[in-house]
């Protein structure tokens, strides 16, 4: 669906602060994928996702959406913005509508939906994120923090994007709200077969939800693959200053002590199954 080819970007070109932020980045995004984009602070993650809907223009390389180069002359960027929804950090801070419904309709209407279409889409999405109809005509500022976040996400979803990019969507939320939002995103992905790009510092979440992981380090993609492949390269990840899920670290330690496991686990469930298997097999031999 989207292909990024040898993308490079320099910040503040031709000034004293000139700084190469992205270098030679290539990857692709397909329908239904859940991509985790990880990297330490300052590795260029936020800069990279701003290229996906054309907020920033790369100075080398290309971005193809459905086969078309978005840097081609005459390419309508507003169409791309509709197809690639970007949820920034603390998205609730962008709310400004008089009512919840009006705020959610804002994006779709800007991007060419008729009033009726936009409202229908907004209602669908608000229902998806679990905002009760009784709130539709209240001010978004009267909601709780978690609810505001959900409304803001609905505001992007209502544009019916084919790719949903989210920058640290759970930042500052308590565990309950966090799980709710992640489960919701997962549900939407399955329902609409859209692609998700999740930018996060929380390896546990990425390991649990993503089915492809990209590791960014100093502006370059240094590792790409399935979560199992990426997170079990613990030494490499630590070398570039990144965490691994606690469960990976602990199962790795177990293996070092001689516990018969083939590979470190990346989720609690996986670890549980593997450890139980070790004991069961031995039980069976007895």
């Amino acid at each position, binding site marked *: 669906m989207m292909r990024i080819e040898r993308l490079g970007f320099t910040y503040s070109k031709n000034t004293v602060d000139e700084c190469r932020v992205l270098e030679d980045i290539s990857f692709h995004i397909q329908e239904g994928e859940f991509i985790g984009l990880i990297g330490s602070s300052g590795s260029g993650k936020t800069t990279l996702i701003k290229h996906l*809907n054309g907020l920033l223009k790369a100075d080398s390389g290309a971005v193809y959406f459905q086969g078309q180069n978005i840097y081609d002359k005459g390419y309508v960027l507003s169409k791309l913005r509709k197809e690639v929804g970007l949820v920034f950090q603390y998205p609730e801070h*962008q709310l*400004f509508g008089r009512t919840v419904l009006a705020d959610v309709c804002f994006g779709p*209407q800007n991007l060419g939906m008729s009033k009726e279409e936009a409202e229908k889409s907004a209602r669908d999405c608000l229902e998806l994120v679990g905002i009760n109809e009784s709130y539709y005509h209240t001010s978004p500022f009267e909601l709780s923090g978690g609810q505001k976040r959900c409304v803001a996400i609905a505001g992007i979803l209502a544009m019916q994007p084919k790719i949903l990019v989210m920058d640290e969507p759970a930042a500052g939320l308590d565990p309950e709200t966090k799980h709710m939002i992640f489960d919701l995103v997962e549900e939407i992905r399955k329902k609409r077969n859209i692609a998700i790009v999740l930018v996060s510092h929380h390896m546990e979440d990425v390991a649990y939800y993503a089915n492809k992981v990209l590791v960014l380090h100093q502006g370059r993609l240094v590792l790409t693959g399935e979560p199992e492949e990426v997170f079990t390269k613990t030494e490499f990840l630590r070398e570039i200053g990144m965490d691994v899920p606690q469960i990976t670290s602990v199962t790795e330690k177990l293996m070092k002590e001689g516990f018969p496991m083939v590979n470190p686990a990346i989720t609690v469930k996986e670890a549980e199954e593997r450890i139980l298997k070790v004991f069961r097999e031995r039980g069976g031999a007895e």
Partner: protein
Amino acid sequence: MIRDITIGQYYAQDSSIHKLDSRTKLMGVLIYIVALFLVKNPWWYLLLFVVILALYRLAKVPYGYLLRGLKGIVILLIFTFVFRLISTPGIPVAQLWIFTITGEGITKAISLTVRIALMIIGASLLSYTSTPRELADGLEKAFGFLEKIHVPIHDMAVIVMIAFRFIPILIEETNVLMDAQASRGVEFEKCSVWKKCRNIFSLLLPLFLSAVRRSSDLAMAMEARGYSGEGETSRMYPLRYHSGDRIAYVLMFLFLAGVIVMRVVNIY
């Protein structure tokens, strides 16, 4: 554009200019501006420019920062230039559509634009070399006598300091908001006036709310650290003149005297 504002951008360095008392530097900028208005011959601007370049070098601020200060006001400069160019009466030298350009206009336009540019470059140096706190303290001391007639100079100094502290934060926040609303299909350039208003509103309201949120947080944090707005407070580094300041004052007044003398005797 908005990223280019240099107000309140301190450039940390260890230089003799940085070490000067902020009152000295304020006086310096004042004298520099007076000098700019006193000289008439464009060649003297070149001299003032050389002086400023020397001061930047002395302050160890890279020359790149010189242009940075100008970038923020580039529109103002162009506007001033064009306005002066077409609105000064005199001997016509060219005709552009309905506008007449005069010889006097060209001279005036160049000299006024250069004057503003030089002024900004000079004032930027002040903010590169003194922290807003030092500036606020300097202003507080310099205008402290107003406290006697119940002008709340001390409170104003605190306000100035906090304003400086939050300028970069709010600029950053505006950038994020612009990106976020652009992702929701907002275009800030090509659209009708009504839409433009609505679009600007989509920035202003969140920005306003964030400022309110931040200020109530900040008020609480300040209160928790013993700020009451009343009573005596002290300073970690009280303003004190050093030998460097004395030398600077002497040089500054010599410079001013020189400019005045030249102006009076009309040597060009």
